[in-house]
């Protein structure tokens, strides 16, 4: 049974996150945690689980079940202990030094547009060996040369304790790799061009010769996403599931950590 629906942009992002997680040149991915308000990373992790990869997955956004028994601080303690290999962060603004702004724009603490807040970013970004940045909206107001406020810094002075930095930034138009000091365009999604990326990006980045197209999700991946992965996510991300897959959460579904 082939699914003829076009590939949604979110499905491209999810597939891109999956490729980044599996990157054989990156540090190992044994335990991945996904924070609040992170449907795309959550879907990528579920996809890997459904494909049978042996990884431990800790999802924060669950009211019941879940991996923790030590309350809200266990995620941060785990990361502090060095037991979380990958975390995901987004931001209202992201800049050319991989700084993220989850506070707001205008004068501190965000008198122009106020975002919810920094959550655990100021800690997790520095405690985790690999951080994958994601932001569906790829526009000049999001990808800025310099964020109005730094919730969590992309680069630290050498004497500052830090286990890792951003591995990459996945957007609705492309994937940027981060090399420790700057972003490098790694692939662009179908329908986008170097020009469309450039004109919607206010942050600096490097464009190497021969930027490939982003590899789309495979048919098998799409089938898993639209079926069992969506099933897992309906309970915690009903709006996302409706928007991307047209699925409605009928009964409350609070499936457990797997």
């Amino acid at each position, binding site marked *: 049974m082939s699914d003829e629906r076009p590939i949604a942009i979110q499905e491209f992002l999810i597939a891109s996150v999956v490729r980044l997680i599996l990157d054989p040149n990156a540090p190992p991915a044994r335990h991945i945690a996904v924070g*609040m*308000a992170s449907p795309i990373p959550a879907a990528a992790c579920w996809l890997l689980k459904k494909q049978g990869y042996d990884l431990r997955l800790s999802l924060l*956004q669950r*009211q*019941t079940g*879940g991996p*923790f*028994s*030590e*309350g*809200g*601080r266990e995620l*941060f303690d785990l990361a*502090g202990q060095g037991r979380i290999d990958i975390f995901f962060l987004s931001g209202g603004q992201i800049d050319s030094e991989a700084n993220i702004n*989850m*506070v*707001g724009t205008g004068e*501190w*603490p*965000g*008198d*122009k*547009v*106020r*975002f*919810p*807040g*920094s*959550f*655990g*970013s*100021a*800690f*997790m*970004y*520095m*405690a985790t060996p690999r951080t994958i940045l994601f932001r569906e909206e790829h526009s000049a107001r999001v990808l800025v040369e310099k964020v109005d*406020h*730094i*919730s*969590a*810094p992309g680069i*630290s*002075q050498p*004497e*500052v*304790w*830090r286990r890792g930095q951003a591995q990459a930034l996945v957007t609705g138009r492309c994937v940027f790799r981060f090399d420790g000091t700057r972003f490098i365009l790694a692939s662009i999604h179908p329908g986008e061009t170097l020009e469309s990326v450039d004109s919607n990006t206010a942050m600096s980045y490097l464009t190497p010769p021969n930027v490939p197209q982003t590899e789309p999700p495979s048919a098998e991946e799409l089938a898993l996403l639209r079926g069992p992965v969506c099933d897992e996510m309906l309970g915690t*991300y*009903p*709006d*996302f599931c409706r928007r991307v897959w047209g699925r409605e959460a009928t009964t*409350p579904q*609070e499936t457990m950590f797997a």
Partner: protein
Amino acid sequence: MTTISLEALAARVTDGALIALPPDDSLSPGALVHALVRRGLRGLRLVGVPTSGYASDLLIGAGCAVAIETAAVSLGEAGTGPRFAAAVAAGTIRVLDATCPVIHTALQAAEKGVPFMPLRGVLGSDVLGHRPEWHVIANPFAADDDPILLVPAITPDFAIFHASCADEEGNVWVGRRRELATMAHAAKHSLVTVERIVKGRMLDDEKLAPGVISGVYVDAIAVAEHGAWPAGLLDEYDADRAHISAYAKAARTEAGFSDYLAQHVHGQKAKSAA
């Protein structure tokens, strides 16, 4: 411990108090917050443990709160708390932006009775730059230069939350939400609503005890059925997402928020008094 009414519980809170409360997905005390709004408290300083949502947005919108320390004010998929965002824009709320583990750490410091506790990370964040009361010291255990953050203890006047049940001695079952235990340990007083009172002593039951907060920390308890609403409660009931989404829409404007209060908060008073 004898239970008191919801309004009597709310009456324990005083103007200007420092109030710690959990986020919407962790035993949020919806009914008690409604009662606090009905009391017309002023000058409250809120602490989101480690974030907050509907409860804080309501207290801010109703003019009860003058300050909030939190890692976020979020309604989940419905975004930033709208009355919080409006108060930020208007400059009518003092925001002490934090990051989740800072708040956990600051409450653990109070729990242990120490004046501060260290935390890794945070250096280089503007969150730190706006908290002149925090200190960065040279790690005295390191041979090389190793700056590290120290955050001061947070000792709330009141911890407020809604739990599944309490027993007749005032022991409260919060399950795996151990951050509520830390919050209660750190606070001077804990005011708790529960779905129901159970017989016996939960601390005598080895199976139940790990999810219990001892009554030694609990000042007063009121029974409030469905008292987390519109938030959910563990495996007992789900959050009322439709309501929170409707709230987020209504609260975009001052007028919409007033209507919401009239209908869902002050309206309740008449209902519960009837």
